[in-house]
Protein backbone atom coordinates (compact mmCIF):
# COMPACT_ATOMS: atom_id res chain seq x y z
CA UNK A 1 0.00 0.00 0.00
CA UNK A 2 1.26 3.49 -0.81
CA UNK A 3 2.28 5.70 2.11
CA UNK A 4 -0.46 8.15 3.21
CA UNK A 5 -0.06 11.63 1.77
CA UNK A 6 -1.03 15.10 2.95
CA UNK A 7 -0.94 18.77 2.03
CA UNK A 8 -0.54 21.62 4.53
CA UNK A 9 -1.96 25.06 3.77
CA UNK A 10 -0.74 27.67 6.26
CA UNK A 11 0.38 31.22 5.59
CA UNK A 12 2.62 31.54 8.62
CA UNK A 13 5.88 29.85 7.83
CA UNK A 14 6.83 29.06 11.42
CA UNK A 15 3.48 27.41 12.07
CA UNK A 16 3.63 25.41 8.85
CA UNK A 17 7.06 24.07 9.84
CA UNK A 18 5.91 23.29 13.37
CA UNK A 19 2.85 21.41 12.12
CA UNK A 20 4.98 19.50 9.66
CA UNK A 21 7.53 18.41 12.26
CA UNK A 22 4.83 17.54 14.80
CA UNK A 23 3.06 15.41 12.19
CA UNK A 24 6.34 13.75 11.31
CA UNK A 25 6.92 12.85 14.97
CA UNK A 26 3.39 11.47 15.43
CA UNK A 27 3.04 9.74 12.09
CA UNK A 28 6.42 9.03 10.49
CA UNK A 29 4.96 7.28 7.42
CA UNK A 30 2.87 10.32 6.49
CA UNK A 31 4.31 12.05 3.47
CA UNK A 32 3.77 15.81 3.20
CA UNK A 33 3.53 16.46 -0.53
CA UNK A 34 3.36 20.24 -0.38
CA UNK A 35 3.09 23.24 1.94
CA UNK A 36 0.97 26.02 0.44
CA UNK A 37 1.40 29.58 1.78
CA UNK A 38 -1.98 30.88 0.61
CA UNK A 39 -5.48 29.83 -0.49
CA UNK A 40 -5.11 29.85 -4.29
CA UNK A 41 -1.85 27.86 -4.18
CA UNK A 42 -3.48 25.38 -1.76
CA UNK A 43 -6.13 24.71 -4.45
CA UNK A 44 -3.61 24.40 -7.28
CA UNK A 45 -1.22 22.16 -5.35
CA UNK A 46 -3.99 19.96 -3.94
CA UNK A 47 -5.37 19.35 -7.44
CA UNK A 48 -1.88 18.72 -8.78
CA UNK A 49 -0.72 16.26 -6.07
CA UNK A 50 -4.13 14.79 -5.10
CA UNK A 51 -3.13 14.08 -1.47
CA UNK A 52 -5.23 11.83 0.76
CA UNK A 53 -5.47 14.48 3.45
CA UNK A 54 -5.60 18.29 3.71
CA UNK A 55 -4.63 20.42 6.70
CA UNK A 56 -6.18 23.81 5.95
CA UNK A 57 -5.71 27.00 7.94
CA UNK A 58 -9.01 28.88 7.96
CA UNK A 59 -7.64 32.41 7.64
CA UNK A 60 -5.31 32.53 4.65
CA UNK A 61 -4.46 35.21 2.12
CA UNK A 62 -6.19 35.03 -1.25
CA UNK A 63 -8.82 32.47 -0.34
CA UNK A 64 -10.02 31.29 3.08
CA UNK A 65 -9.53 27.67 4.09
CA UNK A 66 -13.26 27.05 3.61
CA UNK A 67 -13.30 28.58 0.13
CA UNK A 68 -10.21 26.57 -0.76
CA UNK A 69 -11.91 23.38 0.48
CA UNK A 70 -14.96 24.15 -1.66
CA UNK A 71 -12.87 24.78 -4.76
CA UNK A 72 -10.84 21.61 -4.18
CA UNK A 73 -13.92 19.42 -3.70
CA UNK A 74 -15.63 20.92 -6.76
CA UNK A 75 -12.61 20.43 -9.01
CA UNK A 76 -11.51 17.08 -7.58
CA UNK A 77 -11.41 14.32 -10.23
CA UNK A 78 -14.43 12.06 -9.97
CA UNK A 79 -12.44 8.84 -10.18
CA UNK A 80 -10.43 9.70 -7.06
CA UNK A 81 -11.66 9.45 -3.46
CA UNK A 82 -12.11 12.92 -1.93
CA UNK A 83 -9.36 14.01 0.48
CA UNK A 84 -9.96 13.90 4.24
CA UNK A 85 -10.01 17.39 5.68
CA UNK A 86 -8.74 18.97 8.88
CA UNK A 87 -9.23 22.68 9.54
CA UNK A 88 -6.70 24.52 11.66
CA UNK A 89 -7.74 27.75 13.35
CA UNK A 90 -6.48 30.06 16.10
CA UNK A 91 -9.82 31.35 17.28
CA UNK A 92 -13.14 31.77 15.70
CA UNK A 93 -16.17 33.52 16.98
CA UNK A 94 -18.35 30.66 15.87
CA UNK A 95 -17.28 27.58 17.73
CA UNK A 96 -16.66 24.60 15.54
CA UNK A 97 -17.58 22.25 18.38
CA UNK A 98 -20.33 20.77 16.26
CA UNK A 99 -17.65 19.28 14.08
CA UNK A 100 -15.63 17.70 16.84
CA UNK A 101 -16.61 14.10 16.13
CA UNK A 102 -17.68 14.41 12.57
CA UNK A 103 -16.31 13.79 9.13
CA UNK A 104 -14.37 17.04 9.03
CA UNK A 105 -11.97 17.47 11.93
CA UNK A 106 -10.49 20.69 13.19
CA UNK A 107 -7.62 21.57 15.52
CA UNK A 108 -6.98 24.78 17.41
CA UNK A 109 -3.76 26.76 17.31
CA UNK A 110 -1.45 26.50 19.22
CA UNK A 111 -1.71 22.85 18.19
CA UNK A 112 -1.22 20.51 21.14
CA UNK A 113 0.50 17.21 20.36
CA UNK A 114 -2.12 15.19 22.23
CA UNK A 115 -4.95 16.74 20.20
CA UNK A 116 -3.05 16.32 16.95
CA UNK A 117 -2.41 12.65 17.84
CA UNK A 118 -6.18 12.19 18.20
CA UNK A 119 -6.66 13.74 14.76
CA UNK A 120 -4.03 11.41 13.32
CA UNK A 121 -5.82 8.39 14.84
CA UNK A 122 -9.11 9.50 13.31
CA UNK A 123 -7.47 10.03 9.94
CA UNK A 124 -5.83 6.60 10.06
CA UNK A 125 -9.14 4.97 10.94
CA UNK A 126 -10.88 6.80 8.09
CA UNK A 127 -8.14 5.85 5.61
CA UNK A 128 -8.36 2.18 6.51
CA UNK A 129 -12.10 2.05 6.18
CA UNK A 130 -12.77 -0.21 3.21
CA UNK A 131 -14.35 1.75 0.38
CA UNK A 132 -18.10 1.23 0.26
CA UNK A 133 -19.92 -0.58 -2.51
CA UNK A 134 -20.86 2.62 -4.35
CA UNK A 135 -18.89 5.81 -4.99
CA UNK A 136 -20.84 8.44 -3.12
CA UNK A 137 -22.00 7.14 0.31
CA UNK A 138 -18.71 7.33 2.27
CA UNK A 139 -18.17 10.87 1.04
CA UNK A 140 -21.68 12.03 1.71
CA UNK A 141 -21.26 13.06 5.37
CA UNK A 142 -18.16 15.08 4.58
CA UNK A 143 -19.80 16.87 1.69
CA UNK A 144 -22.85 17.63 3.79
CA UNK A 145 -20.67 19.01 6.53
CA UNK A 146 -18.68 21.13 4.17
CA UNK A 147 -21.93 22.54 2.83
CA UNK A 148 -23.16 23.24 6.36
CA UNK A 149 -19.87 25.04 7.10
CA UNK A 150 -20.12 27.07 3.91
CA UNK A 151 -23.63 28.15 4.85
CA UNK A 152 -22.80 28.88 8.50
CA UNK A 153 -22.16 32.39 9.84
CA UNK A 154 -18.47 31.42 10.04
CA UNK A 155 -18.35 31.73 6.29
CA UNK A 156 -21.45 33.65 5.39
CA UNK A 157 -22.26 36.71 7.46
CA UNK A 158 -25.94 37.21 8.21
CA UNK A 159 -27.59 40.02 6.31
CA UNK A 160 -30.66 42.07 7.04
CA UNK A 161 -33.32 42.11 4.36
CA UNK A 162 -32.75 40.44 1.00
CA UNK A 163 -32.05 42.53 -2.10
CA UNK A 164 -35.08 43.43 -4.22
CA UNK A 165 -33.43 45.06 -7.19
CA UNK A 166 -30.08 44.56 -8.91
CA UNK A 167 -28.58 47.81 -10.14
CA UNK A 168 -26.42 47.26 -13.20
CA UNK A 169 -24.51 50.04 -14.91
CA UNK A 170 -24.34 49.92 -18.70
CA UNK A 171 -22.44 52.95 -19.94
CA UNK A 172 -24.02 55.90 -18.19
CA UNK A 173 -27.36 54.14 -17.65
CA UNK A 174 -28.27 52.22 -14.53
CA UNK A 175 -30.58 49.31 -15.22
CA UNK A 176 -32.88 48.31 -12.40
CA UNK A 177 -33.48 44.57 -12.56
CA UNK A 178 -36.00 43.08 -10.11
CA UNK A 179 -34.36 40.01 -8.56
CA UNK A 180 -37.46 37.99 -9.45
CA UNK A 181 -36.52 38.37 -13.13
CA UNK A 182 -33.00 37.03 -12.64
CA UNK A 183 -32.64 33.45 -13.86
CA UNK A 184 -29.14 33.00 -12.51
CA UNK A 185 -25.98 34.75 -11.34
CA UNK A 186 -22.60 33.60 -12.55
CA UNK A 187 -19.20 34.59 -11.14
CA UNK A 188 -16.91 36.11 -13.77
CA UNK A 189 -13.58 36.93 -12.13
CA UNK A 190 -14.22 39.99 -9.95
CA UNK A 191 -17.60 40.59 -11.54
CA UNK A 192 -20.92 38.82 -11.54
CA UNK A 193 -22.97 38.16 -14.67
CA UNK A 194 -26.67 38.69 -14.07
CA UNK A 195 -28.75 36.68 -16.53
CA UNK A 196 -32.44 37.30 -17.10
CA UNK A 197 -34.56 35.43 -19.67
CA UNK A 198 -33.46 37.70 -22.54
CA UNK A 199 -30.53 39.81 -21.39
CA UNK A 200 -27.39 39.71 -19.36
CA UNK A 201 -25.57 42.38 -17.36
CA UNK A 202 -22.29 42.66 -15.49
CA UNK A 203 -22.17 44.05 -11.98
CA UNK A 204 -19.04 45.03 -10.08
CA UNK A 205 -19.21 42.80 -7.06
CA UNK A 206 -18.08 39.30 -6.26
CA UNK A 207 -20.54 36.43 -6.09
CA UNK A 208 -19.34 35.82 -2.54
CA UNK A 209 -20.42 39.30 -1.50
CA UNK A 210 -23.69 39.10 -3.40
CA UNK A 211 -24.94 35.68 -2.32
CA UNK A 212 -25.61 36.52 1.35
CA UNK A 213 -27.81 39.41 0.17
CA UNK A 214 -30.15 37.10 -1.72
CA UNK A 215 -33.13 35.27 -0.29
CA UNK A 216 -31.74 31.77 0.15
CA UNK A 217 -35.16 30.17 -0.24
CA UNK A 218 -35.43 31.52 -3.79
CA UNK A 219 -31.82 31.62 -4.91
CA UNK A 220 -29.88 28.38 -4.66
CA UNK A 221 -26.15 28.14 -4.86
CA UNK A 222 -25.42 25.13 -7.09
CA UNK A 223 -21.72 25.72 -7.61
CA UNK A 224 -19.22 28.13 -6.06
CA UNK A 225 -19.61 30.20 -9.24
CA UNK A 226 -23.37 29.89 -9.88
CA UNK A 227 -26.51 30.90 -7.99
CA UNK A 228 -29.82 29.99 -9.66
CA UNK A 229 -33.36 31.12 -8.95
CA UNK A 230 -34.99 27.82 -7.96
CA UNK A 231 -38.28 28.54 -9.75
CA UNK A 232 -36.41 29.01 -13.04
CA UNK A 233 -35.04 25.48 -12.97
CA UNK A 234 -36.94 23.15 -15.26
CA UNK A 235 -35.29 19.89 -14.28
CA UNK A 236 -32.07 18.35 -12.96
CA UNK A 237 -30.48 15.25 -14.50
CA UNK A 238 -27.87 12.95 -13.01
CA UNK A 239 -25.57 11.29 -15.55
CA UNK A 240 -23.98 7.83 -15.23
CA UNK A 241 -20.86 9.31 -13.56
CA UNK A 242 -23.07 10.84 -10.85
CA UNK A 243 -22.72 14.41 -12.11
CA UNK A 244 -25.82 16.61 -11.93
CA UNK A 245 -26.83 19.20 -14.53
CA UNK A 246 -29.67 21.69 -14.55
CA UNK A 247 -31.90 22.70 -17.45
CA UNK A 248 -33.59 26.09 -17.20
CA UNK A 249 -37.03 27.19 -18.32
CA UNK A 250 -36.12 30.43 -20.06
CA UNK A 251 -32.49 29.98 -21.01
CA UNK A 252 -30.67 27.42 -23.15
CA UNK A 253 -27.62 26.93 -20.90
CA UNK A 254 -26.87 23.66 -19.18
CA UNK A 255 -25.75 24.44 -15.62
CA UNK A 256 -23.42 21.99 -13.84
CA UNK A 257 -24.16 21.35 -10.15
CA UNK A 258 -21.09 20.76 -7.99
CA UNK A 259 -21.05 17.68 -5.81
CA UNK A 260 -21.34 19.84 -2.71
CA UNK A 261 -24.80 20.98 -3.80
CA UNK A 262 -25.92 17.90 -5.75
CA UNK A 263 -27.85 16.51 -2.76
CA UNK A 264 -30.25 19.45 -3.02
CA UNK A 265 -31.74 17.82 -6.08
CA UNK A 266 -33.68 14.76 -5.09
CA UNK A 267 -37.32 13.77 -5.18
CA UNK A 268 -39.50 14.98 -2.31
Amino acid at each position, binding site marked *: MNPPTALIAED*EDLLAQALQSELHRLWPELKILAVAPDGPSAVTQALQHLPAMLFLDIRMP*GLSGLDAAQAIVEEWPHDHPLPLMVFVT*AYDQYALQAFDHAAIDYVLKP*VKPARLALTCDRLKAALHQPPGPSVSPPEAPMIQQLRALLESPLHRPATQSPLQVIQAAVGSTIHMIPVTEVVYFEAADKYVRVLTAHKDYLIRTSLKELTPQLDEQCFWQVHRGVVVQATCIDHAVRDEAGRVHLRLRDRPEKIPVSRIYASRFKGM
Partner: protein
Amino acid sequence: MIATPSPLHHRPGFLRRGVMSTVFSLGIAAMLAGIKGLDPFVCVIYSLCIGMMCWLTVEALLLVFALLVDRRWIAAAPSGPAGWPGWPWVSLGVLVAIPLAYSVGNHMGNLITGQANHGLDAHSWRSYLGFVLMSVMVAFGGTYYFYSRNRMVSAQAELEHTRRVAAETRLKLLEAQLEPHMLFNTLANLRALIGVDPDAAQTMLDHLIDFYRATLQASRLPWHALGAEFARTADYLALMTVRMGPRLQTCLRLPDELKDLEVPPLLLQPLIENAIKHGLEPQPGGGQLEVSAHRKGPSLVLQVRDTGMGLPVASAMTQGTGFGLLQVRERLSTLFGTQASLALSACPEGGTLVQITLPITTLGTPQGQTAFQSESTP
Protein backbone atom coordinates in the same frame (compact mmCIF):
# COMPACT_ATOMS: atom_id res chain seq x y z
CA MET B 1 -37.07 54.44 25.30
CA ILE B 2 -37.25 50.71 25.50
CA ALA B 3 -39.93 48.64 23.88
CA THR B 4 -42.54 47.46 26.35
CA PRO B 5 -45.55 45.34 25.49
CA SER B 6 -48.51 47.51 24.56
CA PRO B 7 -50.38 48.61 27.68
CA LEU B 8 -53.60 47.80 25.80
CA HIS B 9 -53.00 44.08 25.81
CA HIS B 10 -50.95 43.71 28.90
CA ARG B 11 -51.93 45.34 32.14
CA PRO B 12 -49.31 44.25 34.63
CA GLY B 13 -50.48 43.92 38.21
CA PHE B 14 -54.21 43.99 37.40
CA LEU B 15 -55.01 41.16 39.82
CA ARG B 16 -52.58 42.43 42.44
CA ARG B 17 -54.38 45.77 42.47
CA GLY B 18 -57.68 43.88 42.81
CA VAL B 19 -56.43 41.97 45.83
CA MET B 20 -55.12 45.18 47.40
CA SER B 21 -58.50 46.86 46.82
CA THR B 22 -60.30 43.94 48.48
CA VAL B 23 -58.05 44.08 51.50
CA PHE B 24 -58.55 47.84 51.72
CA SER B 25 -62.33 47.49 51.45
CA LEU B 26 -62.35 44.92 54.25
CA GLY B 27 -60.30 47.36 56.35
CA ILE B 28 -62.90 50.10 55.81
CA ALA B 29 -65.70 47.66 56.63
CA ALA B 30 -63.96 46.79 59.89
CA MET B 31 -63.54 50.50 60.68
CA LEU B 32 -67.19 51.31 60.01
CA ALA B 33 -68.37 48.34 62.02
CA GLY B 34 -66.05 49.24 64.86
CA ILE B 35 -66.62 53.00 65.04
CA LYS B 36 -70.25 53.33 64.06
CA GLY B 37 -71.34 50.01 65.53
CA LEU B 38 -73.05 48.90 62.29
CA ASP B 39 -73.72 45.29 61.34
CA PRO B 40 -70.29 43.91 60.28
CA PHE B 41 -71.85 41.68 57.58
CA VAL B 42 -73.69 44.60 55.96
CA CYS B 43 -70.50 46.73 56.18
CA VAL B 44 -68.48 44.06 54.42
CA ILE B 45 -71.05 43.71 51.60
CA TYR B 46 -71.28 47.46 50.92
CA SER B 47 -67.60 48.04 51.32
CA LEU B 48 -66.68 45.19 48.97
CA CYS B 49 -69.24 46.23 46.33
CA ILE B 50 -68.07 49.84 46.36
CA GLY B 51 -64.38 48.90 46.57
CA MET B 52 -64.63 46.46 43.64
CA MET B 53 -66.54 48.96 41.53
CA CYS B 54 -63.95 51.66 42.27
CA TRP B 55 -61.10 49.30 41.36
CA LEU B 56 -62.73 48.15 38.10
CA THR B 57 -63.69 51.72 37.19
CA VAL B 58 -60.16 53.02 37.69
CA GLU B 59 -58.77 50.09 35.70
CA ALA B 60 -61.27 50.76 32.90
CA LEU B 61 -60.45 54.45 33.04
CA LEU B 62 -56.72 53.82 32.70
CA LEU B 63 -57.36 51.35 29.88
CA VAL B 64 -59.40 53.98 28.03
CA PHE B 65 -56.63 56.53 28.57
CA ALA B 66 -54.01 54.04 27.33
CA LEU B 67 -56.15 53.49 24.22
CA LEU B 68 -56.45 57.24 23.65
CA VAL B 69 -52.70 57.70 24.11
CA ASP B 70 -52.05 54.78 21.77
CA ARG B 71 -54.29 56.32 19.10
CA ARG B 72 -52.58 59.67 19.80
CA TRP B 73 -55.87 61.40 20.58
CA ILE B 74 -54.31 62.66 23.76
CA ALA B 75 -50.61 63.13 24.39
CA ALA B 76 -48.70 60.74 26.60
CA ALA B 77 -47.16 62.28 29.71
CA PRO B 78 -43.43 62.91 29.29
CA SER B 79 -42.69 60.59 32.20
CA GLY B 80 -44.57 57.77 33.82
CA PRO B 81 -45.58 54.24 32.81
CA ALA B 82 -46.53 53.43 29.23
CA GLY B 83 -49.97 54.74 28.29
CA TRP B 84 -50.05 57.22 31.18
CA PRO B 85 -51.76 60.45 30.05
CA GLY B 86 -50.63 62.64 32.98
CA TRP B 87 -52.29 63.69 36.26
CA PRO B 88 -54.78 66.32 34.93
CA TRP B 89 -56.56 63.74 32.78
CA VAL B 90 -56.46 61.08 35.46
CA SER B 91 -57.79 63.51 38.13
CA LEU B 92 -60.65 64.53 35.92
CA GLY B 93 -61.44 60.91 35.15
CA VAL B 94 -61.34 59.85 38.79
CA LEU B 95 -63.53 62.79 39.91
CA VAL B 96 -66.22 61.87 37.39
CA ALA B 97 -65.95 58.11 37.60
CA ILE B 98 -65.65 57.49 41.33
CA PRO B 99 -69.03 58.99 42.39
CA LEU B 100 -70.56 56.89 39.65
CA ALA B 101 -68.71 53.77 40.83
CA TYR B 102 -69.80 54.62 44.36
CA SER B 103 -73.47 54.80 43.36
CA VAL B 104 -73.37 51.59 41.37
CA GLY B 105 -71.56 49.79 44.19
CA ASN B 106 -74.10 51.15 46.63
CA HIS B 107 -76.99 49.88 44.51
CA MET B 108 -75.37 46.47 44.33
CA GLY B 109 -75.08 46.51 48.11
CA ASN B 110 -78.74 47.43 48.37
CA LEU B 111 -79.71 44.56 46.08
CA ILE B 112 -77.71 42.02 48.09
CA THR B 113 -78.70 43.14 51.56
CA GLY B 114 -82.27 44.18 50.68
CA GLN B 115 -81.65 47.51 52.45
CA ALA B 116 -81.87 51.00 50.97
CA ASN B 117 -78.91 52.92 52.30
CA HIS B 118 -76.67 55.81 51.38
CA GLY B 119 -77.47 55.92 47.66
CA LEU B 120 -78.02 58.94 45.47
CA ASP B 121 -81.46 58.91 46.92
CA ALA B 122 -79.96 59.01 50.43
CA HIS B 123 -81.79 61.05 53.06
CA SER B 124 -78.64 62.79 54.14
CA TRP B 125 -76.56 64.55 51.50
CA ARG B 126 -73.84 65.14 54.08
CA SER B 127 -73.33 61.49 54.81
CA TYR B 128 -73.51 60.73 51.08
CA LEU B 129 -70.87 63.39 50.29
CA GLY B 130 -68.69 62.08 53.09
CA PHE B 131 -68.69 58.60 51.64
CA VAL B 132 -68.11 59.84 48.09
CA LEU B 133 -65.21 62.02 49.25
CA MET B 134 -63.70 59.14 51.13
CA SER B 135 -63.96 56.92 48.03
CA VAL B 136 -62.40 59.59 45.85
CA MET B 137 -59.54 60.07 48.28
CA VAL B 138 -58.95 56.36 48.51
CA ALA B 139 -59.07 56.07 44.71
CA PHE B 140 -56.55 58.88 44.36
CA GLY B 141 -54.28 57.39 46.98
CA GLY B 142 -54.42 53.97 45.33
CA THR B 143 -53.91 55.35 41.84
CA TYR B 144 -50.96 57.40 43.03
CA TYR B 145 -49.44 54.40 44.78
CA PHE B 146 -49.71 52.19 41.71
CA TYR B 147 -48.64 55.02 39.42
CA SER B 148 -45.38 55.57 41.27
CA ARG B 149 -44.83 51.83 41.57
CA ASN B 150 -45.25 51.34 37.81
CA ARG B 151 -43.06 54.30 37.13
CA MET B 152 -40.36 52.88 39.33
CA VAL B 153 -40.62 49.50 37.58
CA SER B 154 -40.27 50.99 34.09
CA ALA B 155 -37.44 53.29 35.21
CA GLN B 156 -35.70 50.24 36.62
CA ALA B 157 -36.21 48.27 33.40
CA GLU B 158 -34.75 51.14 31.42
CA LEU B 159 -31.79 51.40 33.77
CA GLU B 160 -31.18 47.67 33.47
CA HIS B 161 -31.37 47.86 29.69
CA THR B 162 -28.83 50.69 29.62
CA ARG B 163 -26.55 48.72 31.92
CA ARG B 164 -26.78 45.63 29.75
CA VAL B 165 -25.97 47.58 26.60
CA ALA B 166 -22.99 49.20 28.33
CA ALA B 167 -21.73 45.83 29.54
CA GLU B 168 -22.07 44.32 26.08
CA THR B 169 -20.16 47.22 24.52
CA ARG B 170 -17.43 46.89 27.14
CA LEU B 171 -17.15 43.17 26.48
CA LYS B 172 -16.97 43.71 22.74
CA LEU B 173 -14.34 46.41 23.21
CA LEU B 174 -12.31 44.18 25.47
CA GLU B 175 -12.50 41.33 22.97
CA ALA B 176 -11.45 43.71 20.20
CA GLN B 177 -8.54 44.97 22.30
CA LEU B 178 -7.37 41.54 23.32
CA GLU B 179 -7.97 40.27 19.79
CA PRO B 180 -8.14 36.56 20.56
CA HIS B 181 -7.27 35.55 17.02
CA MET B 182 -4.03 37.50 17.19
CA LEU B 183 -3.29 36.23 20.70
CA PHE B 184 -3.67 32.55 19.87
CA ASN B 185 -1.77 32.87 16.62
CA THR B 186 1.06 34.64 18.44
CA LEU B 187 1.06 31.93 21.11
CA ALA B 188 1.21 29.28 18.40
CA ASN B 189 4.26 31.01 16.94
CA LEU B 190 5.80 31.30 20.37
CA ARG B 191 5.23 27.62 20.97
CA ALA B 192 6.94 26.79 17.67
CA LEU B 193 9.83 29.19 18.33
CA ILE B 194 10.63 27.75 21.76
CA GLY B 195 11.72 24.55 20.05
CA VAL B 196 13.80 26.07 17.26
CA ASP B 197 15.04 29.44 18.55
CA PRO B 198 14.61 30.03 22.31
CA ASP B 199 16.21 33.51 22.19
CA ALA B 200 13.83 34.70 19.51
CA ALA B 201 10.99 33.19 21.55
CA GLN B 202 12.04 35.25 24.58
CA THR B 203 12.19 38.47 22.58
CA MET B 204 8.77 37.73 21.12
CA LEU B 205 7.37 37.05 24.58
CA ASP B 206 8.74 40.40 25.81
CA HIS B 207 6.95 42.23 23.00
CA LEU B 208 3.78 40.34 23.81
CA ILE B 209 4.03 41.26 27.51
CA ASP B 210 4.55 44.97 26.73
CA PHE B 211 1.74 44.95 24.21
CA TYR B 212 -0.81 43.40 26.56
CA ARG B 213 0.25 45.53 29.51
CA ALA B 214 -0.25 48.63 27.36
CA THR B 215 -3.61 47.35 26.11
CA LEU B 216 -4.89 46.83 29.64
CA GLN B 217 -3.51 50.17 30.87
CA ALA B 218 -4.98 52.07 27.95
CA SER B 219 -8.40 51.96 29.56
CA ARG B 220 -7.10 53.57 32.75
CA LEU B 221 -4.74 56.26 31.44
CA PRO B 222 -6.41 59.15 29.65
CA TRP B 223 -3.20 60.23 27.88
CA HIS B 224 0.28 59.02 27.15
CA ALA B 225 3.24 60.38 25.22
CA LEU B 226 3.27 59.97 21.46
CA GLY B 227 6.67 58.32 21.97
CA ALA B 228 4.97 55.62 24.07
CA GLU B 229 2.24 55.25 21.44
CA PHE B 230 4.88 54.55 18.82
CA ALA B 231 6.73 52.15 21.16
CA ARG B 232 3.51 50.11 21.61
CA THR B 233 2.97 50.17 17.86
CA ALA B 234 6.52 48.85 17.46
CA ASP B 235 5.75 45.99 19.89
CA TYR B 236 2.66 45.05 17.95
CA LEU B 237 4.43 45.21 14.62
CA ALA B 238 7.35 43.13 15.98
CA LEU B 239 4.83 40.40 16.88
CA MET B 240 3.22 40.61 13.47
CA THR B 241 6.62 40.50 11.75
CA VAL B 242 7.48 37.21 13.45
CA ARG B 243 4.19 35.81 12.15
CA MET B 244 4.17 37.20 8.64
CA GLY B 245 7.93 37.11 8.02
CA PRO B 246 9.13 39.00 4.94
CA ARG B 247 5.50 39.54 3.87
CA LEU B 248 5.31 42.46 6.30
CA GLN B 249 7.66 45.43 5.84
CA THR B 250 7.25 48.15 8.42
CA CYS B 251 8.46 51.70 8.83
CA LEU B 252 7.80 53.99 11.82
CA ARG B 253 8.59 57.69 11.59
CA LEU B 254 8.24 59.96 14.59
CA PRO B 255 10.10 63.31 14.62
CA ASP B 256 11.84 63.94 17.96
CA GLU B 257 10.05 67.23 18.62
CA LEU B 258 6.66 65.46 18.63
CA LYS B 259 7.70 62.65 20.99
CA ASP B 260 6.45 64.32 24.16
CA LEU B 261 3.03 65.36 22.92
CA GLU B 262 0.32 63.63 24.94
CA VAL B 263 -2.21 61.62 22.96
CA PRO B 264 -5.07 59.27 23.87
CA PRO B 265 -3.51 55.82 24.33
CA LEU B 266 -3.69 53.14 21.62
CA LEU B 267 -5.46 55.36 19.14
CA LEU B 268 -3.31 53.97 16.34
CA GLN B 269 -3.78 50.34 17.34
CA PRO B 270 -7.15 49.67 15.61
CA LEU B 271 -5.94 51.42 12.45
CA ILE B 272 -2.80 49.31 12.27
CA GLU B 273 -4.77 46.15 12.97
CA ASN B 274 -7.16 47.01 10.15
CA ALA B 275 -4.33 47.77 7.74
CA ILE B 276 -2.83 44.35 8.44
CA LYS B 277 -6.04 42.36 8.70
CA HIS B 278 -7.86 43.81 5.70
CA GLY B 279 -4.99 45.22 3.64
CA LEU B 280 -1.83 43.17 3.97
CA GLU B 281 -2.67 39.75 5.45
CA PRO B 282 -5.19 38.77 2.74
CA GLN B 283 -2.73 39.72 0.03
CA PRO B 284 -0.55 36.73 -0.88
CA GLY B 285 2.59 38.85 -1.36
CA GLY B 286 2.03 40.99 1.76
CA GLY B 287 3.27 44.58 1.56
CA GLN B 288 4.46 47.66 3.42
CA LEU B 289 3.06 49.45 6.41
CA GLU B 290 4.15 52.96 7.26
CA VAL B 291 3.17 54.76 10.45
CA SER B 292 4.17 58.40 10.75
CA ALA B 293 3.45 61.64 12.59
CA HIS B 294 3.93 65.23 11.53
CA ARG B 295 2.89 68.72 12.46
CA LYS B 296 0.70 70.71 10.13
CA GLY B 297 -0.04 74.19 11.42
CA PRO B 298 -2.03 73.86 14.64
CA SER B 299 -2.62 70.15 14.10
CA LEU B 300 -0.87 66.88 14.78
CA VAL B 301 -1.34 64.48 11.89
CA LEU B 302 -0.97 60.73 12.38
CA GLN B 303 -0.88 58.54 9.29
CA VAL B 304 -1.16 54.79 8.73
CA ARG B 305 -0.44 53.85 5.14
CA ASP B 306 -0.41 50.37 3.67
CA THR B 307 0.23 48.95 0.22
CA GLY B 308 -2.42 46.28 0.69
CA MET B 309 -5.64 45.23 -0.99
CA GLY B 310 -7.12 48.71 -0.90
CA LEU B 311 -10.64 49.63 0.10
CA PRO B 312 -13.32 47.25 -1.14
CA VAL B 313 -15.53 48.80 -3.79
CA ALA B 314 -18.77 50.29 -2.53
CA SER B 315 -18.43 48.62 0.82
CA ALA B 316 -19.17 49.91 4.28
CA MET B 317 -15.42 50.08 4.88
CA THR B 318 -15.14 53.37 3.06
CA GLN B 319 -17.39 55.01 5.60
CA GLY B 320 -15.40 53.37 8.33
CA THR B 321 -18.25 51.64 10.07
CA GLY B 322 -16.16 48.73 11.29
CA PHE B 323 -16.03 48.34 15.06
CA GLY B 324 -12.39 49.46 15.33
CA LEU B 325 -12.84 52.63 13.32
CA LEU B 326 -16.15 53.40 15.00
CA GLN B 327 -14.39 53.17 18.36
CA VAL B 328 -11.64 55.56 17.23
CA ARG B 329 -14.19 58.03 15.86
CA GLU B 330 -16.16 57.92 19.10
CA ARG B 331 -13.08 58.50 21.22
CA LEU B 332 -12.03 61.43 19.05
CA SER B 333 -15.41 63.09 19.17
CA THR B 334 -15.70 62.65 22.95
CA LEU B 335 -12.26 64.15 23.53
CA PHE B 336 -12.05 66.83 20.86
CA GLY B 337 -15.54 67.37 19.46
CA THR B 338 -15.33 68.49 15.85
CA GLN B 339 -11.71 69.62 16.18
CA ALA B 340 -10.35 66.15 15.42
CA SER B 341 -11.01 63.98 12.42
CA LEU B 342 -10.39 60.53 10.98
CA ALA B 343 -10.24 60.07 7.23
CA LEU B 344 -9.86 56.98 5.05
CA SER B 345 -8.72 57.23 1.50
CA ALA B 346 -7.39 55.03 -1.25
CA CYS B 347 -3.73 55.64 -2.12
CA PRO B 348 -3.21 56.43 -5.78
CA GLU B 349 -0.48 53.77 -5.96
CA GLY B 350 -2.78 51.18 -4.33
CA GLY B 351 -3.46 50.45 -0.69
CA THR B 352 -5.12 52.59 1.94
CA LEU B 353 -4.23 55.74 3.86
CA VAL B 354 -5.84 56.47 7.21
CA GLN B 355 -5.23 59.87 8.71
CA ILE B 356 -6.03 61.22 12.16
CA THR B 357 -5.86 64.97 12.70
CA LEU B 358 -5.68 66.26 16.30
CA PRO B 359 -5.64 69.86 17.57
CA ILE B 360 -2.26 70.28 19.30
CA THR B 361 -3.48 72.91 21.78
CA THR B 362 -6.15 70.64 23.25
CA LEU B 363 -3.87 67.63 23.65
CA GLY B 364 -3.40 66.32 27.17
CA THR B 365 -0.86 67.67 29.59
CA PRO B 366 1.60 65.24 31.14
CA GLN B 367 -0.02 63.59 34.14
CA GLY B 368 3.31 63.09 35.92
CA GLN B 369 5.55 60.19 35.11
CA THR B 370 3.73 56.93 35.51
CA ALA B 371 5.67 53.71 35.70
CA PHE B 372 4.31 52.70 32.33
CA GLN B 373 5.40 55.88 30.61
CA SER B 374 8.86 56.08 32.12
CA GLU B 375 9.53 52.46 31.26
CA SER B 376 8.31 52.60 27.74
CA THR B 377 9.34 55.96 26.34
CA PRO B 378 12.25 55.12 24.07
